[in-house]
């Protein structure tokens, strides 16, 4: 287990380095002088020079790059241009909301998709299977932010059952604010994962050991849940991890729609305000998030299937 983690983290380093380098290059490719862009055309030469000195913009590029890498490794991105907070404070304030949304929508997605996929596989080619196929076809086609917008308009604006924006305070209020965004993302995840559960389970149900289990008289639910599903879960776990990554942009959109705080809305706000330190930090946080999701998938793999760890 320890070696898997270490190897995976080593694997992730080039990806993170590429992300950091791209962000650095992108920020330096911006047309015009960042000092003028931020202080405005009317800033005096002294002000501009002071700003350049403070931000390290007067140093040679390679030194700026090294400083930037050091800041990224130590997660110290300095101060935001547009607010009085430091960048780390902004990340600390926003990150919990993004984590809540990711966890809640993944739980909803799992709770819907696995039973649905099992049902579709067990009752293959029946009405139940057809309905689950329609569900996943629609889920593939409907953009997550459109579903979120519809839920917002119907259940928050028209019916007034849920709050229109914000992240909520206290446990109950937080859950109440979380409900619609998490359902929107969770349903889209469920569409993808239920199909995967179905095909994976169908494949496993054709194996010899399943026939053996049935032949020795095991009850059908035991065959499905104890014997088949455990082995069918590997691709499903990959699917869940992939769905977290592929709904990343959807989750940013959902944060915007529901006016939720979060890393996504922080990042989009920073792009509109050209708040470079915050953009850099947000991109790094998302890149670390991607690496962690991949790592978590590998660890769950090893837990479900001990053979993976040995290899």
């Amino acid at each position, binding site marked *: 287990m320890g070696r898997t983690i270490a190897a995976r983290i080593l694997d992730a380093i080039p*990806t993170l380095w590429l992300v950091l380098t791209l962000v650095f290059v992108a920020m330096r490719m911006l047309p015009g002088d960042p000092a003028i862009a931020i202080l405005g055309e009317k800033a005096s030469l002294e002000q501009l020079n002071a700003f350049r000195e403070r931000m390290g913009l007067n140093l040679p590029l390679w030194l700026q790059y090294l400083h930037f890498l050091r800041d990224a490794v130590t997660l110290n991105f300095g101060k935001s241009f547009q607010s009085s907070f430091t960048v780390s404070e902004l990340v600390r304030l926003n990150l919990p909301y993004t984590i809540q949304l990711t966890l809640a929508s993944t739980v909803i997605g799992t709770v819907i998709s696995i039973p649905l996929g099992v049902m579709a596989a067990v009752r293959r080619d029946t009405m139940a299977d057809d309905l689950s196929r329609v569900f996943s*076809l629609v889920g593939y*086609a*409907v953009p997550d932010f459109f579903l979120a*917008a*519809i839920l917002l308009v119907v259940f928050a604006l028209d019916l007034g059952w849920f709050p229109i924006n914000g992240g909520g305070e206290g446990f109950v209020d937080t859950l109440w604010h979380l409900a619609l965004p998490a359902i929107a993302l969770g349903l889209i995840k469920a569409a993808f994962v239920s199909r995967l559960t179905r095909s994976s389970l169908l494949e496993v149900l054709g194996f010899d050991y399943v026939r053996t289990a049935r032949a020795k008289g095991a009850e059908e639910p035991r065959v499905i849940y104890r014997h088949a599903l455990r082995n069918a879960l590997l691709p499903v776990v990959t699917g869940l991890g992939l769905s977290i990554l592929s709904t990343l942009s959807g989750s940013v*959109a959902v944060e915007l729609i529901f006016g939720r705080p979060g890393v996504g809305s922080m990042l989009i706000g920073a792009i509109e305000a050209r708040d470079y330190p915050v953009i850099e930090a947000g*991109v790094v946080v998302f890149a670390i998030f991607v690496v962690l999701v991949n790592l978590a998938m590998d660890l769950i793999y090893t837990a479900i299937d001990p053979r993976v760890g040995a290899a």
Partner: protein
Amino acid sequence: MTLASLVVLAAIVLIAVFAEQVAPYNPLAQSILSVNQLPSAKHWLGTDQLGRDVLSRIIHGARTSLLLGISAPVLAAVIGTFLGLVGGYFGGWADRIIGRITDLLLAFPVLLLGIIVAAALSSGFWSMLMVLTIAFAPRFARIARASTLALRQAPFVEAAIAAGLGHGVILYRHILPNIIGPVVVVLTLWIATAIRLEATLSFLGLGTRPPFASWGNIIRDGLNAMFGSPWPIIAAGLAISITVLALNMIGDAVRDVLDPETRT
């Protein structure tokens, strides 16, 4: 179902091509006298918060979505297939470099690429084309490389080498026609993804810039005027969903024909 999807898709493509002739109004024409109208005989899908005709905006938005949705995956397929061919055929250091870049890009979320490019270059059609092409090309490279690798040892390829044909001729005449099948299957599926991503990026303000219409930014505008008419959101969302649904069904059908083993 596949036939119905083809008909729907053909209709959408025709509408996009003849947007100027089909759209009842200029999609950019504002009118302060008719803002946030509900659907009527005059404006079939109502008007938005600037009094622009929603139907005309959806029709012109189809043009943006389809143009980008088709050109990005096609460009990615051309670049990716070329890289995969070269890597798989020649092997060695070229293959290692291409493989490494491919792995790195595959681990790189499209959203981050979109954000970085939008922050550095400003958003719009060309930066979105770049983002989606860079994001998709590695997926084609990987498929093309795997297929090329399998063909590299095939007797007819070895015969061609023995006959003294140049590498270019072998790649183009002997290998390419044999690997194009899987590439086309993937292409149809990525067109659907590209349309969805274009909508998402435009919704986030990283894609098509107003006043130009795209399905994503129509939804964005609609939400900003939240107490206005819900019709822009509904119409644009349905347009995306129907197009993607039709493309996915066609993609599944193409896959079933070209690759019967994965049929479910």
